[in-house]
């Protein structure tokens, strides 16, 4: 067996047998994906519910349209009480031809929505009652807009973050532990090149990243979460590999300065956590203030995120990779060069 192959196998075994690392590589990011995925599941899909007392053609038309969710009450007082309590934004009361809407003043946006919708249906019914053809026609069609369902931005974000965390920690902790336990010096005494040691460790990290990708996407695609991949999802693979290398290099830099595993772990957290929050891992950056968006552009994770989002769910083609790939490669080169300058074989 070649040194490269056995070293890769040895490091893979070490990785698989380390429960703590496994937890932080797979379960920890997955917890975020699941928790946020469940909490935010109904955001955006949320329809306004109103109370309805009575029935008639307009109520049927409203129900069929699905524009509002209707909650039926037999008793006007009970329905109005719901509005007073702030549970529902409005109550629609039908007495024959007469439609009354009682709405809560506190929630003006929702009330206005309800009033507008009900009004539209009443007008339409009135027009139909006259038997005249409409003078103006109006058609509405849904467009997939830039604002995505939460799971659609959560998955690429948490995947990028998970890959970044495991690459940074993997390389920083391995480096520090090997230096402290003198494994590095021992390897140096063997006729192998530093390149084969380094590349076997990177191979393990990239393999881990691909497995992370498969698991996270697989789970997010379950019906409860409802991730829908675009046709160009496979473009995420080169992005995963480039991202792993970039964050591996960052880990080497962190590991060069840290004396103990604990210090390396703390330093890696200090580097990764703010980057994760500012790069759109947990919420889309477009919703952040403009200055924050500018700041976030200095983080490679932001660009990896953007690329992932574009190819995994926005359905953009290979051209969407150009910018993130260029930035990740550039980052890897600069940080990798710095790391090689401060690299030490021994304490």
């Amino acid at each position: 067996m070649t040194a490269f192959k056995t070293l890769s196998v040895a490091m893979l075994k070490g990785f698989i047998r380390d429960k703590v690392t496994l937890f932080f590589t797979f379960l920890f990011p997955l917890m975020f994906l699941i928790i946020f995925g469940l909490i935010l599941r109904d955001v955006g899909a949320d329809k306004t519910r109103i109370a309805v007392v009575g029935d008639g053609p307009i109520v049927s038309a409203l129900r069929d349209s699905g524009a509002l969710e209707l909650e039926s009450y037999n008793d006007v007082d009970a329905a109005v009480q719901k509005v007073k309590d702030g549970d529902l934004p409005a109550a629609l009361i039908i007495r024959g031809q007469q439609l009354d809407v009682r709405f809560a003043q506190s929630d003006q946006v929702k009330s206005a929505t309800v009033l507008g919708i009900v009004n539209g249906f009443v007008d339409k019914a009135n027009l139909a009652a006259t038997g005249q053809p409409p003078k103006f026609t109006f058609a509405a069609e849904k467009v997939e807009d830039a604002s995505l369902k939460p799971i659609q931005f959560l998955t690429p974000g948490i995947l990028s973050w998970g890959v970044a965390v495991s690459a940074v920690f993997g390389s920083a902790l391995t480096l520090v532990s090997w230096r402290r336990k003198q494994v590095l010096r021992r390897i140096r005494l063997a006729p192998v090149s530093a390149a084969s040691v380094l590349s076997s460790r990177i191979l393990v990290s990239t393999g881990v990243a691909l497995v992370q990708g498969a698991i996270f996407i697989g789970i997010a695609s379950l019906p409860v979460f409802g991730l829908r991949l675009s046709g160009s999802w496979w473009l995420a693979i080169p992005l995963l590999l480039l991202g792993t290398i970039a964050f591996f290099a960052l880990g080497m830099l962190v590991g060069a300065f840290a004396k103990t595993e604990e210090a390396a772990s703390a330093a890696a957290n200090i580097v990764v956590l703010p980057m994760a929050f500012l790069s759109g891992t947990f919420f889309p950056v477009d919703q952040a203030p403009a200055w924050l968006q500018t700041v976030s552009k200095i983080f490679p994770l932001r660009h990896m995120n953007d690329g992932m989002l574009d190819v995994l769910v926005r359905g953009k083609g290979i051209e969407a990779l150009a910018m993130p790939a260029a930035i990740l490669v550039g980052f890897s080169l600069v940080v990798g060069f710095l790391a090689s300058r401060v690299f030490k074989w021994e304490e």
Partner: protein
Amino acid sequence: MTEERSAVVVRDDRKSYGELKAVDGVSFTVAEGEFFGILGPNGAGKTTTLEIIEGLREPDSGEVRLFGESPWPRNVKLLPRIGVQLQATSFFDKLTAKEQLQTFGSLYGVSRATAADMLELVGLADKANEQENKLSGGQRQRLSIACALVHDPDIVFLDEPTAALDPQARRNLWDVLRAIQERGKTIVYTTHYLDEAEILCDRVAIMDNGKILALDPPAVLVRGLDAPTHVTLQKGVLSVVDASSLDGVDEAHENEVSLTISTRRPAPVLSALADRGALDGLQVRTATLEDVFLNLTGREYRA
């Protein structure tokens, strides 16, 4: 012994860390097949000396030859010929004993079968599938030595392989070290156990404060001391006066339990004692490297 046949040649090596002279003008040669010990207390400069020869550190001045070549800067041609156990046991994370050996072996392009053979040699065959961190201190040391040997090197450097081991584990390890020498390897090893160096080594260099104070076979070092041999008998077997009158006795004295005779010619004394049937509770204690160290440095040896 000509230098061409020597495995190691060190000539006036020096290495300082700031003001501290860790190695202060050390010279010696090690013959092929020799079991060479470097003995000294902590901080004597043993590790630094060893690592200069291994090519892990550059000496400030002086010359080092390993099989006729310079180990510094990293000499890839030499690497397959040397096996090293560093002072810290260096293992890969979470691998079993067998996997450690296979992995280290693969760094040298060695087949997997050799790994099993090595486990046998160091008596760890039954621990093959045990993870390294589950092994006892002595087992870890033996595994570490096996890792140093896995590529069948010509010379092995062992840095305090018996440190922090209990007496039984130390003795087990001595057997391993002897077995290695029987395979024709040159062994250079450091220790701070005087008794051990005396038993194992062909030659011992006694080191203190970065300097070699003496270098000889242990027996020669001890003999050179001209220290008396102490023969101890049970009290009452012989009177002090009778003991003092025996041929070869320098001095005799008695305490509550025993009679101690000092002599520089133990042979006639022992035969005289045997003639008188006065051998009850007989013990003979000759000078040891401890006495040599005391004599060389003027202070008690403390590891």
